[in-house]
């Protein structure tokens, strides 16, 4: 009868768990729910900002409650809940899913109506662009993430300004036999490659979201990578992110193209610097233009308190909040005024990303973008593995994307 006792214990425990379900907060006053996918210091700083907002607005009865959702489940959770009127009032997400949610409907509230010009102007223009879908603004940009040049100060005293210089410096630091490389980045990853592609003037979509993967510029940009890999030999093979981290931390990669997420992985012993990506001699001295992902703050369409929600959005993207998020949460705010602040301006990292973002291109926020990744990655692989010529590979990718886009449009 030991099992019986076990079973009874289990039932009791369950009952206890079920009973102790916290009663749902009554909808008294205006409680607003904010969803995000942050943790650690980002979460802490966001909660601090929210707390400040709550303190300031306690008299109005507005209270913001936050909920962290794991990133892997976040998009699905939004897609499942918000259109059915259940989810949050405000949520933070990168712009890549924005178009999809707008097309799906009843998810993101357009906010042009609320938007005074002064608010519009407080952001770095390209981040605002990322929040705009088919001419309508749907959110305010909170922060951005962008790839830049990260270098080991011990190996590279002054960062190269142009691709010519880059190759020269890198070649000197490369010793393949010893596993040393002048430059390391995930060049097979289409996201990283985009800085070259955009730099050459290429891109993914033309007007009306017609794919333009096989444009001459795109082909040229891959040929550039091929040159770096084969002719100059400054890049390692199969550069996964874990490998790049290891190489850089062991001083075997002098320079890296990567974003803010990389900084957390750099070993304490490495003295690193940040600089803008070099210009491209091959493209007439135009700068490399990385894609930028912008995390926006959105008002959810079914929210019952849109006015108040927009006030929260406005506060979260204000200079005061941006400063906290930047300094404590280590985010790069989209609010441009905050960079005039002495503390922020004095932060080399924030400053470097701010410089880089000037030439960055917002990653397309149209839903069709998700159809690009897999064919484009395949094309990059085929080219780098010499299984296909750049032109042919991009032609294939173009065809695949065009087919998928057409499949979506079919009526």
């Amino acid at each position, binding site marked *: 009868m030991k099992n019986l006792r076990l079973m009874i214990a289990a039932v009791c425990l369950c009952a206890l768990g079920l009973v102790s379900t916290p009663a749902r907060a009554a909808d008294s006053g205006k409680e607003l729910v904010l969803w995000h996918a942050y943790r650690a210091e980002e979460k802490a700083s966001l909660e601090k900002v929210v707390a400040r907002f709550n303190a300031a607005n306690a008299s109005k009865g507005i209270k913001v409650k936050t909920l962290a959702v794991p990133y892997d489940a976040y998009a699905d959770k939004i897609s499942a809940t918000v259109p059915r009127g259940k989810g949050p009032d405000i949520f933070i997400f990168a712009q890549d899913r924005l178009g999809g949610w707008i097309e799906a409907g009843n998810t993101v509230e357009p906010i*042009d*109506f609320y938007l005074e010009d002064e608010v519009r102007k407080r952001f770095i223009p390209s981040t605002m662009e990322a929040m705009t879908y*088919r001419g309508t603004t749907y959110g305010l940009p909170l922060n951005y993430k962008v790839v830049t040049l990260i270098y080991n100060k011990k190996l590279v005293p002054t960062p190269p300004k142009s691709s010519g210089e880059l190759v020269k410096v890198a070649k000197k630091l490369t010793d393949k036999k010893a596993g040393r490389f002048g430059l390391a980045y995930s060049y097979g990853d289409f996201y990283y490659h985009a800085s070259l592609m955009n730099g050459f003037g290429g891109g993914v979509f033309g007007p009306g979201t017609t794919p333009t993967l096989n444009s001459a510029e795109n082909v040229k940009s891959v040929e550039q990578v091929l040159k770096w890999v084969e002719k100059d030999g400054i890049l390692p093979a199969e550069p996964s992110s*874990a*490998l790049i981290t290891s190489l850089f931390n062991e001083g075997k990669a002098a320079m890296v193209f990567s974003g803010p997420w990389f900084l957390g992985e750099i070993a304490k012993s490495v003295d690193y610097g940040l600089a803008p990506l070099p210009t491209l001699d091959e493209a007439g001295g135009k700068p490399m233009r990385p894609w930028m992902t912008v995390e926006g703050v959105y008002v959810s369409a079914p929210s019952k308190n849109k006015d108040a929600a927009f006030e929260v959005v406005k506060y979260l993207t204000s200079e005061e909040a941006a400063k906290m998020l930047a300094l404590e949460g280590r985010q790069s705010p989209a609010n441009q005024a905050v960079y005039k602040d002495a503390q922020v301006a004095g932060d080399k990292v924030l400053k470097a990303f701010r410089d880089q973002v000037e030439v960055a291109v917002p990653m397309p926020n149209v839903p069709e973008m*998700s159809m690009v990744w897999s064919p484009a990655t395949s094309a990059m*692989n085929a080219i780098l*593995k010499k299984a296909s010529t750049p032109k042919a590979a991009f032609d294939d990718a173009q065809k695949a994307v065009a087919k998928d886009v057409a*499949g979506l*449009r079919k009526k």
Partner: protein
Amino acid sequence: MSASDPQQTGDGREGVADRPLPESEAPPSLHSADPRKGGQAPGAPRHMRVLAGLVLALGLVLALAHGLLSRTVEDLTVQREDRRALVSLHALTDLVERAEGSGDAARAVVSAWQDQMRAGSAVRVIAFSGIKLEASTFPEDVGDKAAPRRLAREEKPIYDRGQRLRTAVETNQEEGGARKAELETELLSNGGRQVSAPVEVDGSVVGMVEMATAPQAPAPKPGLGPLLLWWLVPLAACAGASFVVRKQGLRVVASVVAFAVGLGGYAAYSLRTLEHEVRESQEVVAAQLRTMAERAATVLAEQQLPAEPALRPGHWDADEFRRPLGLVSPAGEVDAAVLAERVEEVASGVRRTFGGLAVLGLAVLLFIGMGGLARTVETVVEHRQAYLYIAPAMVGMLVLVFFPFFYGITLSFTDSNLYNSSQPLSDTWVGLRNYVEILGDFTIAKRGSDGALVFNYLNFYYTLFFTVVWTVTNVAIGVSVGLGLALILNVQGLAMRPVYRVLLILPWAMPNYITALIWKGMFHQQFGVVNHVIRMFGGQGLAWFDSPATSFLTALTTNGWLSFPFMMVVSLGALQSIPAELYEAARVDGASRWQQFTAITLPALKPALVPAVILSVVWTFNMFNIIFLVTDGEPGGSTEILVTQAYKYAFQRYRYGYAAAYSTVIFGILLLYSMVQNRLSRATEAA
């Protein structure tokens, strides 16, 4: 068993004896023998059953038909009113556009227009630039709220509506299609309707005109008279017939005839009503068009607006994409040919609907009339204990498993995708097209320029082939490794058996999310452990994820690692249940070890292994995590299995309907497999 019991057929239902017995000759289990079950509950007399069937079937079908008819009539009325309002709105928009959409000119046009509208109607013009209410005749917009002014916060939905229209116009232009509605109509709380249209000046949308119409008289309801008539008359006729006729078969025939008469009569009535509605609508819209054309011309002249290009009343009666409907000519005449087409369209719709209803009704009628209902109730009562035991699980399954499952299957017949997922499924119905697209594409491979075979990895049949290879190899590995280890672990007196056993089932207990990623890391080209080992022995490291074969190998290793413990435990259990005497007997007979294995061990393992294999085939076939985490289809989608492909269709290409069809095909394949397997194993058992 009990059904053929004379006690139960005691009330003389001769039709019952020849129906198949629920349990063919199998000895009954003790539970079916509920001795208290008397079987004396007499069914309703049979002529009453036929009548009851008719009452219910005809009643149900007519009620449905009546409901549908009312709704259709209402829809037609609403459509007509919308079209009338739109004709007026388009005429007005045309004028507002000529006034450049803003300023005093626009306001003048609006106020001039208001004069001729029914009381309770109102118009407003929105200009996007400055978010302004340009002109308004709404009663609330007076005094300090009079136009022009900036829209107030609570008026945000109006502005957003305008923006929506603008986006729609631009999107349609950009894509050269008609995907998004360029007009919006909305039911107002007071019963009136509101229609909105974009204002285009110099090719770009700068504002919006909205018109709220006065509440309308409710749509005429189809009378209950015909309904009752066509219900009661056939009923009475059938009742009479069934008392006269003594043969049950004839009674059923009579009821079917009565049913047909009732439904047919009501169908004719519905058809007449609808045709009348359609014809009347055209007249009304045509009249409206003529009035509006005149009115517009007058206002045009009064306000001295540019007269070029000429007014185009033919474009005013338009669909939601602002494409002319063509039912009414620009001069305001009803186009008889188009109208006839439209009437025929409605009529065929009615015929289809009534066809469906007839099938439904007949099913109900025959089910009740032929005693199906009585039998069903009897069966349920007789086996209530069994059903009671199954009910809780069944209810759960129905709600949480089968409902989503059928929803998925329904979805597979639609073209549901990101853009139209909010529409009702009937609007995106495409029948079997997704299936044809999936199954009808045979371009599995083509010759490359160098003559080599290039596989089309996205092709269904390639993926199916790969999935089958994946499943077969995985299960084979799982079974052979598991069985091999079980045989070793079953050796009597082997030291440390429990230790091995515990360690060997660990992969089963760990969450596979992390172990899968660890395995992926172990196959890294430069730094992976596997390549380190190869290099230790002087070999070259492999780029594992570059060729389909090696990439497949990584996934296979990972999944083999994850799945052998299950097979091992199953085999171990089965091995332990083999009596030792069997081996002793075999040894006495001089059987070699191998002979013992094939003659005793394998047959004894079969009953345990067969279900385990079936199960693991199903699991492996749908093993999403491993493929998704380890190879992710690399290179180029060549190691995608069907489920991961379905996932990608849904979440990368946003084609929900297509992905659902894909899933349904997967389901079909597995179902087929399990049926064949079932038959095979039964056949071998019988042999």
